[in-house]
């Protein structure tokens, strides 16, 4: 051993070296940056080629944020449950309870009460799921499904009791929410008010220029900072708070240990039952909040309003690798595709998106060649060719087919990703005190 080696060994404790960690982080961020660049470039090119400015307009991205929020909250709810070891297929049902309570309290007491109502409604069914899975050890998917079957029935019953005699209400929808949620627009960037004064709107100016990439980015940022409803901001805060609590607090450590290795947590004095109850009740609260956001979006409770968003939320949990940032990103992706079906002329937007996807696939093939991942190349190119063909062939895509895009995209994303994912080790397995898992 030479004397030069000694300080290095003392400075570095066991585990991966500092530099290898930095390199790993940098390459990970680089990959992320690369794919973001591919995404925005192909969107921009598709916008120019198809001449459809709405593809990357602030309006479209605003709707994306709005439609992504309920999905994201469901995904976050799934995160709370599954990190603590309980699979929550019942998110959809909890979301339905959120919508009915939000419609009820929103009609009686206003939009903020609607948010509270959503949380309460979701929590009630979260608690029910907890009783079945934690206390009685029922198969998590079975219990979740029973909840999904029960919730619409109870919601219908409640709607019948609450809304049928009210003006503007019926079995299938509540009267309108009393008042509207405030909206926030960023001053100096997107022309929001600052201390009562109007400010310039530089992002809109850039967006209107139609510049390659720059205008698209301006559209994105303007969309994310213009007329953002306070309930969406609450949802974003929930994400920040959840990420902090689950990964940076003792409670979060206990919660994750209940999902990874409950018997180890138990032997260290953590009450696995109680922890899993917390997880599943908070999960229900988040899903219910997502339902409340839906109610505020359409200003009233409507039967069947959730439309499978609870399941889309579960899908974001999978593509997001059981992490808050991943869940958020997945929800924004699905939200974009659900959002474009709500715009004017959605069929044209879908056609432009197909073009963007084809361009992105060509670029991805280029990256694959550069990285010598040969097996990916033919697949990407074949899919890209199919995309170009679809773009030129289908001048006017059919409207019914347009509405399947969010689900189709979800299916494709879940199939393409999903290889290096790591769910919590013991999620979905009923745990009894004294068991060795």
């Amino acid at each position, binding site marked *: 051993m030479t004397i030069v080696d000694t300080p290095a060994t003392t400075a570095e404790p066991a585990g991966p070296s500092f530099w290898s960690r930095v390199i790993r982080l940098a390459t990970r961020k680089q990959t992320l940056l690369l794919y973001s660049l591919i995404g925005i470039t192909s969107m921009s090119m598709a916008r120019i080629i198809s001449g459809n400015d709405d593809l990357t307009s602030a309006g479209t991205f605003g709707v994306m944020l709005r439609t992504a929020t309920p999905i994201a909250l469901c995904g976050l709810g799934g995160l709370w449950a599954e990190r603590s070891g309980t699979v929550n*297929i019942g998110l959809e049902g909890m979301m339905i309870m959120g919508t009915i309570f939000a419609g009820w309290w929103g009609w009686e007491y206003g939009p903020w009460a609607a948010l509270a109502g959503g949380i309460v409604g979701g929590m009630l069914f979260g608690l*029910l799921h907890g*009783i*079945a899975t934690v206390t*009685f*050890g*029922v*198969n998590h*998917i*079975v*219990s979740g*499904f*029973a*909840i999904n*079957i*029960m*919730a*619409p*029935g*109870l919601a*219908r*019953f409640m709607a*019948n*009791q609450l809304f049928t005699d009210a003006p503007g209400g019926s079995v299938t929808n509540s009267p309108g929410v009393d008042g509207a949620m405030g909206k926030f627009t960023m001053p100096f960037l997107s022309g929001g008010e600052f201390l009562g004064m109007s400010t310039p709107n530089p992002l809109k100016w850039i967006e209107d220029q139609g510049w390659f990439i720059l205008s698209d980015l301006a559209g994105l940022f303007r969309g994310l900072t213009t007329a953002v409803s306070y309930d969406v901001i609450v949802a974003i805060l929930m994400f920040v708070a959840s990420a902090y609590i689950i990964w940076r607090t003792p409670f979060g450590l206990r919660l994750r240990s209940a999902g990874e290795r409950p018997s180890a947590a138990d032997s260290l004095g953590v009450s696995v039952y109680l922890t899993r109850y917390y997880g599943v009740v908070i999960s229900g609260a988040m899903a219910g909040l997502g339902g409340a956001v839906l109610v505020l979006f359409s200003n009233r409770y409507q039967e069947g309003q959730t439309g*499978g968003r609870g*399941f889309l939320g*579960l*899908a974001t949990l*999978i593509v997001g690798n059981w992490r808050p940032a991943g869940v958020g990103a997945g929800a924004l992706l699905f939200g974009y595709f659900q959002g474009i079906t709500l715009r004017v002329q959605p069929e044209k937007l879908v056609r432009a998106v197909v073009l963007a996807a084809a361009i992105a696939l060509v670029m991805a093939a280029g990256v694959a060649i550069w990285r010598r991942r040969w097996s990916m190349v033919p697949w990407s190119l074949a899919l890209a060719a199919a995309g170009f063909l679809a773009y030129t062939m289908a001048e006017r895509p*059919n409207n*019914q*087919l347009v*509405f*399947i895009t969010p*689900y*189709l995209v*979800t*299916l494709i994303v*879940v*199939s*393409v990703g*999903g*290889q290096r994912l790591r769910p919590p080790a013991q999620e979905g397995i009923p745990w009894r005190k004294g068991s060795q898992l």
Partner: protein
Amino acid sequence: MWRRFARGAIAPLVAAVVAFIVASLAVLASGNDPLTAFRAMWQFIDSSESVILIINRAVPYYVAGVAVAIGFKMNLFNIGANGQYTLATLIAAWLGVKVVLPAPLHVTFILVVAITVGALWASIAGILKVTRGVNEVISTIMLNYIAIGITAFLVAEHFRNPDVVLIAETELLPPSARLPSLNPLFEAIGINFGGGAKLYGFLPFAILLGIGYHLMLNRSRFGYELRVSGNNPSAAVTAGINPKGMVLKAIILSGAVAGLIGMSALLADPQFYKYGDQFPKTLGFTGIAIALLGRNHPVGIAAAALVWATIERATQVLSRIGIPQEIGVILQGSFLLAAVIAYEVVQRRNEEATAREAAAAAAKQRGASDDEIAAVAAT
């Protein structure tokens, strides 16, 4: 032994009691008398007409329950029966009009088409699970929405009956493709139902399906492999069963049966003989509840389907006497949830009892004293 049987019967009973309590609370909450409600419900279903309508309703539920149960036996959650059967029914209805065949062949042809389409659509989820590791719950749910979109598109644009302007629906099936009512058959052996209700002709097919399911599950090698793979995946691998192949086969078989869910309405219900906007579209979801209630057992599923249909039929009367009809869904939901919990508790008790008996038997073999055996059996 009899004790275990009693335990088996006790779970559904407890669940029923819980469900009635919850439903009574709901009736009370709506400002009505539960006893009036239940008496009216009982009087309403206590007629041969109601019994026939209940059976008609239960038949598609049974088929759906069996389809889902095949997956459940292997711990596969085929949530996608809805998409599988709507797509299958639409294509079967469309092709059924296109061909000219004698009656038995025509019906067979339509059934085969439905089975094939259901199996093919389900195989997407199977292939994704086997090759890409995609959770079947997510993939089948997404495939449901995709199937709904595709069927809406096909029925509106391509398979539409040109004579009907306002509603998108396929053309009516010719008489050779329709299954006759079973009433004449029963009248021939001297049973006259009275009333106007007709027993749909798809019932024998459902019974055959149930028998086939029982034989497949308990008398065939495939059924054995299915059960082993579901109960103990690692033991199945050790025994040389290919897990991926089993996943694929189970999903495809489940989808094939799911393809038949819409057939009772399509071939035997005079209201339809066609696929259209009015066609029931969520029977697959009901099938999940039925399979869970019936514990994937061929007879259990039948009982569950009948209970489910009975609740639906009985609560129809409630709105007439001013009680919200939604009590029915609450009754169903709370029954289901209470039942899955009760099954779980009973099963755990049974396992504990088995362990105790085994311990007592082992102690006896060791030649332990009676006191010791009693002590072992009591713990």
